[in-house]
């Protein structure tokens, strides 16, 4: 997502340095490991069905500890924790990635526009965002999910709308900081169109902030689905959604830790790996 924006923007302008940077990236162990982890989860989400994994069927043993027969053990309904953890990547990536992509695009666009034009556009946008900041996001989320359901497309849109104002505020602040700088003034004096200045001058300059916001909201989006599950509003059983699984099985923390620890590790590894990939990209590119 945000990573893709960076890649596309720079690939176009400078093809040869791109290859050098790629090589520089591949020499960084944290990048390689993180990228592999992200690829692993994308692969799991796309292909778990092909391997005949069934996250729903009762294997015949309830709360079986990890071992030879069940690599990661079974849960309170005898389902394979391994199969459920892999299958859970599905919804996490769909909702997390697309939700925060939507939020980032929406938030950045609004933030840049508000910061560039200022005046009444800025005021109108900011007060509009205030409405969403004022309505506590969680409460807003509960009401909206209860009213419109918690299907995957609905969650993507909801996460996009809920996260966008926060991102927009921060991007706006970054843009305001850029506006005083010479390159913007020069471009204005040269008569460049507003759209061109925003796209060509401002966006590349606030891109690091955008990338950070995007990666942070990926984590937040996945955690948000978990929070919804905690409140009984997220994915429905028997879905292997990570948030739901963690919430359902935390009562077994003392008696069958594996049913909650492995999905939690899955969430953690995806979130941390995405973050590190973004960090490395940013450092190599600047």
């Amino acid at each position: 997502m945000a990573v893709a924006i960076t890649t596309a923007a720079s690939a176009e302008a400078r093809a040869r340095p791109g290859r050098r940077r790629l090589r520089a990236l591949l020499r960084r162990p944290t990048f390689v490991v993180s990228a592999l982890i992200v690829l692993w989860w994308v692969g799991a989400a796309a292909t778990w069905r092909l391997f005949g994994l069934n996250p729903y069927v009762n294997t015949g043993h309830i709360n079986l500890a990890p071992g030879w027969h069940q690599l990661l053990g079974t849960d309170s309904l005898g389902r394979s924790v391994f199969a459920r953890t892999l299958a859970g990547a599905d919804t996490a990536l769909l909702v997390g990635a697309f939700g925060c992509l939507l939020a980032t695009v929406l938030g950045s666009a609004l933030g840049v526009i508000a910061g560039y034009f200022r005046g009444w556009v800025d005021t109108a946008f900011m007060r509009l965002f205030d409405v969403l900041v004022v309505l506590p996001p969680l409460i807003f989320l509960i009401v909206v999910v209860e009213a419109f359901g918690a299907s995957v497309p609905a969650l993507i849109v909801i996460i996009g709308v809920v996260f966008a104002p926060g991102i927009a505020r921060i991007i706006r602040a970054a843009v305001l900081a850029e506006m005083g700088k010479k390159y913007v003034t020069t471009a204005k004096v040269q008569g460049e169109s507003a759209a061109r200045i925003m796209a060509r001058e401002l966006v590349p300059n606030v891109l690091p902030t955008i990338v950070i916001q995007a990666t942070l909201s990926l984590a937040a989006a996945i955690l948000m689905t978990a929070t919804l599950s905690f409140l009984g509003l997220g994915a429905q059983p028997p879905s292997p959604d990570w948030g739901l699984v963690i919430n359902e099985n935390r009562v077994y923390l003392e008696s069958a830790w594996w049913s909650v620890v492995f999905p939690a590790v899955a969430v953690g590894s995806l979130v941390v790996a995405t973050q590190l990939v973004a960090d490395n990209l940013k450092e190599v590119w600047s």
Partner: protein
Amino acid sequence: MSVLSDQAAALAPGRRPGLWSGRRSRVLTLLGRRLIQIPVVLFVVSILTFWLIELVPGDPGRNALGQYATPAQVRAWDVSNGLTGPITGRYLHWLSDFVSGNWGTSFVYQVPSRPLVFGHLVNTLFLGLFAFVLLVPLALVLGSIQAYREGGRTDRGITIALMSLSSVPEFVIGVLLLVVFAVGLNLVPVESGAFATGDFAQRLQVTTLPAVTLAVAYLAVLARMVRTGTAGALTAQFHRTAVLKGLRPAQIVRRHVARNALIPTLQLVGIYLGTLLGGSAVVETLFNYPGLGALLVVAAERKDPVLLTDGVMITGVIALLALLLTDIGLILMDPRIRFEAGES
């Protein structure tokens, strides 16, 4: 990308007094405008809340009387509680109640809504403040360490640790803390209900675990923003110029870096202060802490329009004031943001 002259001019000591008085007038303008805008925003939010809660399935009469009451009885309950009729009429009724200060009764708890909301608000503010006291210094310190060591092992290590920590849902962190400190060591009670009657020491005791849980949840994000802001400031031209000018490191940090690093951070803190009011719901639920977040979640889930809208208004006022303070802080701190006449 050359901003050297601009920055140097803005930060030149000689221009300080003039800038300061200019800022004061800008702050006053901002205050004046917001005083008009805030009630408008609140008005829109109240309409939105009232309308959204109407869309939630279920009805208060059914929730109160349970599954075995007949539809006629449920209808009678709804009528006697003023829940029937067009939504505009009910909204206006709520509005006049709210404005007159004579708030209605919560359907879920069957007690007057105002003491309920304010009682819980105080508790949530206490919790939020406690969490902030733990959170903000730690985030500033960790974030700036990371920035000074950007790309290095310390930076990477802190990132991995913080992100791992924050990717564990609050309710799992909270449970782990409870298992260790409440069940294992028996140092604190599991449920914080005793809070309501306790003295300050007891309050502190029962609020410690919820506050730590809450702080952990926000730590990574805040440290991240500090790191970005500081790193950006460190590589900026004015920083290099300052170094070239031979200023002492402490001076550089105080005059230049801190300010630029704090801008995005302050933005985030402003937003999160508001978020914290509703966002601590999970922690409050888990610890049975009598806070506003959990109260509003119940109001939303159980379709209590009066309690929900009253509560949202109060969190709204506080969130908007926090944003206002943030914006004032930004004017005072960053010379580059100019709220000119006709703006803000």
